[in-house]
């Protein structure tokens, strides 16, 4: 088991390096960070070149990559191009906020999705099954941003009509959220809608997948053996069927982790949350490549770490994998 873990970690490192190079090249090539300066008539040729030189922008790309990596590791990703603002403190702050609601969304969607999927499989073709299948299909077809918008619309119109504030539609917290439990409730009220928006797609996906996986396992020979041994049905389902059906879901959740950040970008923009997504959009709109690169790098790292955890979990649950 230990060798398996070590091997997975060692494998992740070159992926990380390659990804960093990819990010850097991609962002550098696609845009000309000094485009605005170049077009500015007030800057002389000389000033332009000195700025270029100070930022090492006149060197070949591999060298620039080297500088960037050095900056990333030693200087905490350095500073933004325009405004010279330190990148890392901002990034750290928004990362905390985003993880709050992204992790909640993942956990909720797995719990709810798996439960629905298992129950649908056990009650195949029932009203519950058909209803949840239909809702799942609709969930798949709904772009996250529209769902977020609709949630906002509903809540806002409820507020306008009946003056009941169910949830907040923007911001992370109210201006004076208080302490302890008050702060917590306030935060929950603010994050509820974004979490719901992110959850729906996850619930749709996991419930469908779990249902299919469960149905397949329920038809397998070893479940038949378990029944033939005289086990009560509940034990057959929980100990034999469910455990096996759950395993492939781990990979699915891991794969989805990256996509969750995409959802976060959208929801944070709509709900104006001070999170990574919002940060990213702002950086892009300012055409500032360094925060963009830092952001992509941080997300890639998180995805790789998450995949690593998922691989290890897979090894815990499925003994066949460990001896690869």
């Amino acid at each position, binding site marked *: 088991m230990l060798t398996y873990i070590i091997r997975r970690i060692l494998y992740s490192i070159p992926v990380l390096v390659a990804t960093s190079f*990819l990010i850097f090249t991609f962002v550098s090539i696609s845009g000309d960070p000094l485009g605005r300066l170049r077009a500015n008539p007030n800057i002389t040729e000389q000033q332009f070149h000195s700025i270029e030189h100070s930022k090492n922008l006149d060197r070949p790309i591999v060298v620039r990559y080297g500088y960037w990596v050095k900056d990333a590791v030693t200087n905490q990703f350095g500073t933004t191009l325009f405004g010279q603002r330190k990148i890392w403190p901002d990034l750290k702050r928004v990362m905390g906020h985003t993880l709050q609601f992204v992790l909640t969304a993942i956990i909720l969607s797995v719990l709810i999705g798996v439960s629905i999927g298992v129950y649908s499989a056990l009650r195949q073709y029932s009203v519950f099954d058909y209803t949840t299948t239909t809702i799942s299909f609709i969930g798949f*077809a709904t772009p996250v941003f529209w769902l977020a918008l609709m949630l906002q619309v509903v809540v806002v119109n409820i507020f306008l009509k009946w003056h009941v504030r169910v949830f907040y539609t923007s911001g992370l917290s109210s201006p004076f959220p208080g302490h302890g439990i008050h702060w917590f409730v306030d935060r929950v009220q603010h994050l509820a809608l974004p979490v719901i928006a992110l959850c729906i797609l996850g619930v749709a996906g996991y419930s469908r997948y779990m249902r299919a996986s469960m149905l397949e396992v329920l038809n397998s020979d070893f479940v038949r053996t378990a029944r033939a041994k005289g086990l009560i049905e509940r034990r057959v389902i929980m100990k034999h069927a469910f455990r096996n059906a759950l395993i492939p879901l781990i990979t699915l959740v891991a794969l989805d982790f*990256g*996509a969750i950040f*995409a959802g976060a970008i959208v929801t944070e923009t709509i709900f104006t949350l001070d999170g990574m997504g919002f940060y*990213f959009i702002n950086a892009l709109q300012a055409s500032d490549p360094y925060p963009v690169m830092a952001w992509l790098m941080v997300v890639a790292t998180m995805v790789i770490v998450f995949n690593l955890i998922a691989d290890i979990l897979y090894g815990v649950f499925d003994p066949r994998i460990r001896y690869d």
Partner: protein
Amino acid sequence: MTDQPRVHDPNASGLILGPDVNLDVPAGGGQMVDRAVPGDSAAQYEYGLEIEARSQWGYARRRFMRHRLAVASVVVLACIFGAGIFANYIAPYSYKEIPYVTIAGTSVIDTSQILAHPSRQHLFGTDSAGRDTFSRTLYGIRTSARVGIFVGLLSTLIGTIIGGLAGFYGGWSDNLLMRMTDLFLTLPLLAVLLTASKFLDSSTPTTLAILIACLIWTSIARIVRGVFLSLREKEYVEAARAAGAGDLRIMLRHMIPNSVGPIVVAATLTIGTAIALEATLSFLGFGIRPPTPALGALLDEGQEAGLDKWWLVTYPGLLIVLIILCINFIGDGLRDALDPTQRRVRA
């Protein structure tokens, strides 16, 4: 009865949907008569054993028709896309039309029409400049359809070629492809797309479509690679090779026809994904820029007008959901029809 695989039949249409299933031995003697599909040849009749040769396309068609939701979706989608394509003729107003009214001899903007609720004249209401949302939605559908189909075709082309080569030749090219797709997976697609569209120009439907296609092809490539890898080991490929067939011929004649099923399904679903991506990008302001109509942009403007004008946000969005829903159902039906190897648990 012999089981000659039709693959080597020079007179066959060439498009085969499954390498191993050719002769259908349906159950029940004497009951098969009413299920004969036109163009089939009934083989010998023995008491209690009636064997019918059924063409692959007929089989696929029959399976698709059984999937009622898929069939309904085809109809609905055709209507929606049709309405979009013929928006010029159908839309009651033009995209940019702002209602004017003559007051005291001069043409002034008719403010009474601004932000109107849905009504008989304006099915989806009007926006902050008095423009008819229904018409704008229709034009937006046209753009979405264009982008979606273009992405579908282009990404399928790229994905099939690259995935096919990787799966067929294996070795380092396959490894390279796999590493590349893995790398693509570590970064969220939307983030990469946003970055690319910001720094490259993607304001027209065509450029945006190309951009999306260049990032989406990996999923199709994976599928094609998988199919080719498994087909590589099949006996008829070996036989064709032994008969002297070259690589290209094997790929075109044997492998591609047998991967049509999964490719078509994946391509269909890609169209839906592309439409969703386009809408998201346009909504965030990174995709298609005005004046080209886009559903996402409509929603963006709707949001700015204020959430109490819920119709501006609801109806165009519902239409997006409906389009993607239909595409997904069609993809599901196609999967049932064309990919009999997948153990389908009926939805």
